[in-house]
């Protein structure tokens, strides 16, 4: 996997879909319109916890609406998320429920000839509820006598009784924690709390489902995995997979919100099958606010440290309030444990006690990091505290304790592990110290005035994909089809979805580089479940590393066939031929190694193969990565705190991203900058608050869910983004991921900088101006 000097890999190339996106010419799910289509609308529960006694649909039906309630659906019990293996997946929901378990949960749905009529019909649905007592606080939910959301759910095919709303318990114990703490000279214990926040992906979730004359169904849906959608719909609709075709569409971001099959998609499909007509069901922003949240977390962290600056043991207790349905808090706890375990060595002594609790709130699903930003905030804040109190240099301490090359990394919980082969940690910490002037920072006590600045740092990572040398709880492989057309252009068919980060552009570049054709000659074919092999999902920062590896693998096979065909035509042995890109010809050229006078263009070869009836030069296969290499990040942040208003601003940031080979450096930098903005929101602004009756205080409106924009960011010249000089031997052309890593350490870096500015440690997010003033007053009183 060598990179040539004029390689496309590593070159800044404009996004191929950018002009169409900017001009509004790309079709998203909501742009799909089909003649004879009906419009769907969802009735959502106004109650956080209520049994649905009956639903009278007669008035709505009299208006011409088709209605769907719990009585109409196939009562298949499922988990919307299917990236884990079935025996490690809890199932607790149906398409529509008999019992509403959170405000905003879909209760019934209608389809009508116009959207207006659909909403009018919705008002005519008469639901009789038996209102039940709700529970919102996870600690309350675990007490005896608390209202119970479930009696029995399923883990794989095994029935599981639910007690005290405890959905999942996940305890992990490695090494000898007790001995590790005994060996420590100091023990540090702190409590951290992170709130629910909202993905706020640009596109709200939607689906268009069209029953076909042959009994099959075609589905256009907001999806991170077309195959996951197809498989779940197959179970729910009771159809063979060959009768379900899910189309791959561009979509407006995700941040993880559609790793699972979106709740609306089976609703829309069931509605369309009942109506026997195409149905379009697009949700509004306020519906989306009640659809999915980031997992909140409560952590109690205990770290043992020796006087020579070594972490000797670590114990994390985690409580997670995941809401009304399981979208895999089991995997979430496992992953959180893994991020925690992989940050530092702790002499191999790790204990994790995780509990995930049902409450009458919106279900939580993965959001950029799957527990990583949460636990990173706790651990990286603790490391800062330890260094401050024990007098260690924060960079030296991290360098001494971090898990690096040759050590094990948990890519997706305890069952998916591989050995770290590439790491930009040292480069980022050592160079960053100089570049940012980290050593010039002064102690909080030496600062004065109403405006104070501080410097902080934190390091983090995320996995690239979820594959290890041994199979574990998570499925991970991808597929690709590549064929060479008779003019030398190439069709790439991939089930991999692109969230907007440029994943599919990267896949095109990988194919173009292997086959040595100009990028413009690679076409990205429309893809759907009927013409692609399986890809688990674009999640876990695996698009380029795993999806790209499948494309690389298939492209190499196609290249072999190409050289073999060329050999026959040129009367040469294939091994004596090479393919090189000829930008002047706008083609790839196959030539005898070291003798460029004997050559044929790729187009000529494919055309000749056609004339001779030898067949198309093409290949299809699946491919599984066998590593889950971490992509590392480091954030150096300067924070400015106004002591009179409590307002925090960020004048300056230095970001290091270690993605191995950057397939497109501009897009990598874009991800790092964009994620800094999201981390800024998580740390300083965003919070989903409930009103005590199970409703969001912002009513699902953006007006009262404030996210930072470019106005809250440091100015462009004060955002320094650097890509580490690493090469991942297991990645396509040395690439790993970056997407989720880009967020992991933002929160702790900002909080550490705030501490350095004002000497106040924040253990809860967000750090609002109100919270800052409160703490400043408390500190003043204590003096």
């Amino acid at each position, binding site marked *: 996997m060598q990179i040539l000097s004029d390689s496309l890999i590593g070159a800044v190339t404009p996004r191929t879909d950018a002009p169409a996106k900017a001009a509004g010419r790309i079709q998203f799910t909501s742009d799909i319109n089909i003649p004879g289509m009906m419009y769907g*609308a969802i009735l959502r529960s106004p109650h956080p916890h209520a049994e649905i006694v009956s639903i009278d649909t007669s008035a709505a039906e009299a208006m011409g609406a088709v209605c769907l309630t719990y009585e109409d659906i196939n009562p298949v019990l499922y988990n919307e998320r299917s990236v884990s293996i079935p025996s490690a997946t809890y199932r607790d929901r149906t398409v529509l429920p008999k019992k509403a378990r959170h405000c905003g949960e879909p209760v019934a749905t209608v389809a009508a000839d116009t*959207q*207006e009529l659909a*909403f*009018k019909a919705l*008002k005519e649905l008469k639901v009789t509820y038996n209102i039940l007592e709700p529970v919102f606080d996870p600690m309350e939910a675990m007490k005896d006598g608390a209202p119970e959301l479930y009696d029995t759910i399923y883990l794989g095919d095994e029935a599981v009784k639910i007690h005290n709303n405890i959905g999942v318990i996940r305890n992990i114990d490695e090494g000898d924690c007790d001995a590790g703490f005994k060996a420590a000279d100091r023990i540090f214990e702190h409590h951290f709390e992170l709130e629910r926040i909202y993905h706020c992906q640009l596109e709200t979730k939607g689906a268009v489902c069209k029953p076909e004359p042959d009994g099959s169904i075609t589905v256009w849906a907001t999806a991170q995995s077309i195959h996951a959608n197809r498989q779940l719909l197959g179970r729910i609709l009771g159809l063979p997979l060959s009768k379900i075709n899910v189309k791959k569409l561009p979509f407006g971001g995700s941040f993880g919100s559609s790793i699972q099959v979106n709740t609306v998609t089976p609703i829309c499909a069931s509605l369309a099958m009942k109506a026997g007509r195409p149905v379009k069901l*697009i949700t*509004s*922003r*306020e519906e989306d606010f009640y659809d999915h949240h980031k997992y909140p977390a409560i952590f109690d962290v205990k770290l043992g440290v020796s006087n020579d600056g070594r972490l000797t043991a670590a114990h994390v207790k985690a409580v997670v309030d995941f809401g009304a349905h399981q979208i895999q808090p089991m995997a979430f706890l496992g992953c959180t444990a893994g991020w925690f375990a992989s940050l530092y060595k702790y002499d191999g002594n790790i204990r994790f006690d995780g509990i995930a609790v049902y409450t009458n709130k919106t279900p939580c699903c993965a959001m950029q990091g799957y527990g990583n930003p949460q636990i990173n905030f706790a651990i990286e804040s603790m490391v800062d505290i330890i260094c401050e109190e024990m007098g260690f240099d924060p960079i030296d301490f991290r360098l001494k304790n971090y898990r690096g090359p040759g050590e094990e990394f948990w890519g997706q919980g305890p069952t998916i592990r591989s050995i770290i082969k590439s790491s930009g940690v040292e480069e980022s910490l050592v160079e960053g110290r100089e570049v940012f002037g980290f050593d010039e920072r002064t102690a909080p006590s030496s600062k004065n005035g109403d405006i104070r600045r501080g410097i902080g740092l934190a390091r983090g990572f995320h996995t690239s994909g979820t594959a290890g040398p041994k199979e574990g709880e998570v499925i991970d492989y991808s597929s690709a089809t590549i064929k060479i057309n008779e003019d030398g252009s190439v069709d790439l068919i991939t089930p991999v979805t692109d969230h907007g980060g440029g994943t599919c552009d990267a896949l095109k570049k990988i194919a173009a580089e292997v086959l040595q054709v100009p990028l413009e000659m690679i076409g990205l074919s429309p893809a759907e479940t009927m013409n692609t092999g399986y890809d688990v999902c674009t999640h876990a920062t695996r698009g380029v590393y795993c999806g790209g590896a499948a494309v690389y693998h298939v492209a190499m096979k196609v290249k072999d066939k190409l050289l073999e065909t060329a050999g026959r035509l040129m009367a040469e042995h294939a091994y004596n031929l090479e393919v090189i890109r000829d930008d002047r010809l706008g083609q790839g050229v196959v030539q005898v190694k070291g003798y460029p006078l004997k050559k044929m263009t790729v187009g000529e070869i494919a055309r000749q193969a056609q004339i001779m009836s030898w067949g198309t030069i093409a290949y299809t296969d699946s491919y599984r990565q066998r590593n889950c290499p971490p992509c590392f990040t480091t954030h150096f942040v300067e924070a400015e705190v106004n002591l*009179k*208003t*409590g*307002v925090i601003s960020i004048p300056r940031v230095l970001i290091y991203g270690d993605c191995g080979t950057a397939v497109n450096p501009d897009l990598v930098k874009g991800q790092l900058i964009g994620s800094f903005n999201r981390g800024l929101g998580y740390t300083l*602004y965003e919070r989903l608050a409930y009103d005590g009756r199970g409703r969001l*205080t*912002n*009513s*699902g*409106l953006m*007006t*009262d869910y*404030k*996210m*930072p*924009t470019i*106005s*809250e960011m440091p100015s462009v010249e004060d955002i320094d983004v650097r890509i580490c000089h690493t090469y991942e031997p297991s990645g396509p052309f040395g690439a790993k991921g970056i997407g989720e890593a880009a967020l992991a350490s933002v929160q702790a870096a900002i909080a550490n900088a705030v501490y350095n500015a004002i000497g106040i440690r924040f253990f809860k997010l967000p750090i609002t*101006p*109100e919270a800052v*003033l409160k703490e400043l007053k408390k500190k003043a009183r204590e003096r």
Partner: protein
Amino acid sequence: MNTMIIEQEFEYVKPGSLFEALDILAQTNNVKIYAGGTDLIVKLKTSGINMDAMMDINGIPELSELTASGGNGLVIGSAVKLSRIEKHPAVKSNYSALFEALMSMASVSVRNMGTLGGNLANASPAADTAGPVICYKGILELMSRSGIREVPAEDFFISSGVSAIRPDELLTRIKLPAVNKNTGAKFIKTGRVKSDIAKVSFTVVIEREGSKIKSCRAAAGSAAAKPVYLRTVSESLKGRIMTRELITETVDRIAGIIEPIDDQRTTAEYRKELIKVIAADAFSKAWSLSGGKLI
């Protein structure tokens, strides 16, 4: 709540003249005025409105006029878009606090739709332009079939969402009188993020005579159930020599007067803290802009 479509049924009327508009108001119950729609349409979707008809006033030529009046005064039609006002050179030079308020509002796209008339008539306690219009002694012209009333801006706001406009009246123009020499003004607002409704806002317009305050008008937003003109504080400053101590004393008084609430955006407690900071800042900046030196 459904933000996908407007389900409510109502008449939509778009009169071409002022007379026609006033006739409609006189003859129809429950008419809501559509100027920019940036508040009305949102309310229509999120909370529903008791409304039989929506009257679009964008077809009335007089209401879209923005003209200079005597001295350096300004007359702004109630349907003039916020972005047009912010681009008018006289606004930036003579009514800098209004300019600052406009620039602080929402986003460019919202300012391209929203109007000054709408921002005032909506009577939100957080209306950003209310403070500057009050402090610049703005007069609101209310017209009906029975005649014209001119209401000083400070008397226009009654409570949250309620103004002095009667059901048959239309807010037609906002008149800003000429600004005297040696006048300095400042509008300061704090939101959760830049593009936000105010946690609290403060406006002050000071006319200076030597080292003394000749006249002063101060107003606070998001600090009570309506935008408030701080009359007693403003009047008590008349004739005083401007000092840092005076500012400190004044902002403490203001924090004691205002009656903020806890809401989505912040707490009453924080508002009381914050107004001291931004009012002190506004006083010293306005004074300096008036040509005064702070002692």
